[in-house]
């Protein structure tokens, strides 16, 4: 009970702060500034291998270069990539890829059927690939196992958008974007998780996918 009360108090305190940051940068008032704040999600065919799919999940947006060396993944947070490969697309996860960040290593499990679906998750503890989390300024450390490649560490934020102009449009202080936009995310970093898996492990045709951050209970 104590834990429940505490978590509700935290939600109540933080929810009073309103932010407007895209793509999903700091779009979670309850977890803003924490290791579970997702900024972006990408899913694309591997540029290096047409038979593979790449998932990129970024957390902790708008890291200044001076703040990046000391940034780290939250050891109590598990990133889950959810995959609905059903014919009906019921938007329930049939497969999950789960990533944990402990003792300086990223460990990625799956793709495998989840133990439970929905907002509660259980670590699948299946076969995994792992890699040392790449330190700021070091060459990427890549782990490979079971056909899966994994990377975790700081990267340039791949997102680009004139957020300031957009906010001015929404606020009614501008009627259009600038003729030459200013990338609000230029020169900033994120903490990235990159996972590449064979497409054959995901299903066939089209999948629906989404990413969640989940705190250990």
């Amino acid at each position, binding site marked *: 009970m104590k834990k*429940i009360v505490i978590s509700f108090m935290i939600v109540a305190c933080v*929810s009073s702060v309103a932010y*407007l940051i*895209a*793509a*999903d940068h700091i*779009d*979670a*008032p*309850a977890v803003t500034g924490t290791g*579970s704040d997702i900024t*972006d*999600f*990408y*899913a*694309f*065919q*591997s*540029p290096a291998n047409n038979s593979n*799919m790449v998932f*990129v999940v970024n957390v902790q947006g708008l890291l200044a*270069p001076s703040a*990046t060396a000391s940034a780290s993944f939250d050891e109590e947070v*598990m990133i889950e990539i*959810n995959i*609905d490969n059903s014919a009906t697309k019921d*938007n329930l996860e049939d497969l999950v890829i789960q990533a944990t960040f402990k003792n300086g290593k990223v460990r990625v499990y799956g793709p495998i059927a989840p133990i439970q679906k*929905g*907002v509660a998750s*259980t*670590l699948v503890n299946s076969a995994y690939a792992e890699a040392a989390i790449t330190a700021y300024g070091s060459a*990427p450390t890549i782990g490979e196992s079971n056909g899966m490649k994994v*990377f975790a560490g700081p*990267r*340039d934020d791949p997102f*680009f*958008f004139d957020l300031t*102009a957009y906010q001015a*449009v929404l606020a009614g202080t501008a009627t*259009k*974007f*600038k003729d030459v936009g*200013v*990338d609000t995310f*230029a020169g900033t*970093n994120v903490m990235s998780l*990159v996972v590449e898996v064979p*497409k054959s492990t*995901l299903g066939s*045709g*089209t999948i*629906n996918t*989404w*990413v*969640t*951050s*989940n*705190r*250990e*209970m």
Partner: protein
Amino acid sequence: MKKISKIITLGLLSVAAVSMSGCDKNDDPKAMVTYEQEDQMARPGISTVFVSSDMKDNFNTTTPSAMGAAYATKFKDRLLALNPDYTTNLLTLDAATFSGVLATDVLSVSLDGATTFYDGTNVLTGRKLSDDVITVELILIFGGPDASEKPGLTDDNVDANDKDFSNAFPYLATPW
């Protein structure tokens, strides 16, 4: 209340799990590790544009299968507030249909070919690093049936990232 009962249920589950794991040979006390969801996303910018500040935490903890029923009307109201002149868009979707699609926040990804938010031919078959996703969304919200309406609002005129991407794993650029 629903959330509390879920947490309590989870708590009971994990207690059961721990006592069960005590019976087998696995000496890892955390053999069953459980988690509670805190944030989620699929399509870029959706929460930013369509979910009001007071609803963001709720949206982030609503499973996609339940999002349509909970959010389609709210998204439609927001769409028509942003663009009172909305009729249909480049995807030929009227306000209700477009809002319904957006409210279920999942990213559709093709396993059979081009994976892009929009490349002039393929629409919503994935999201690659270089996709100008915000401009695509602005076109769909403000551009009308043929993308020609409200030209000042359909492109933020930031068309590419500030660093080049790589064709080799992990694809993202080195940090600043």
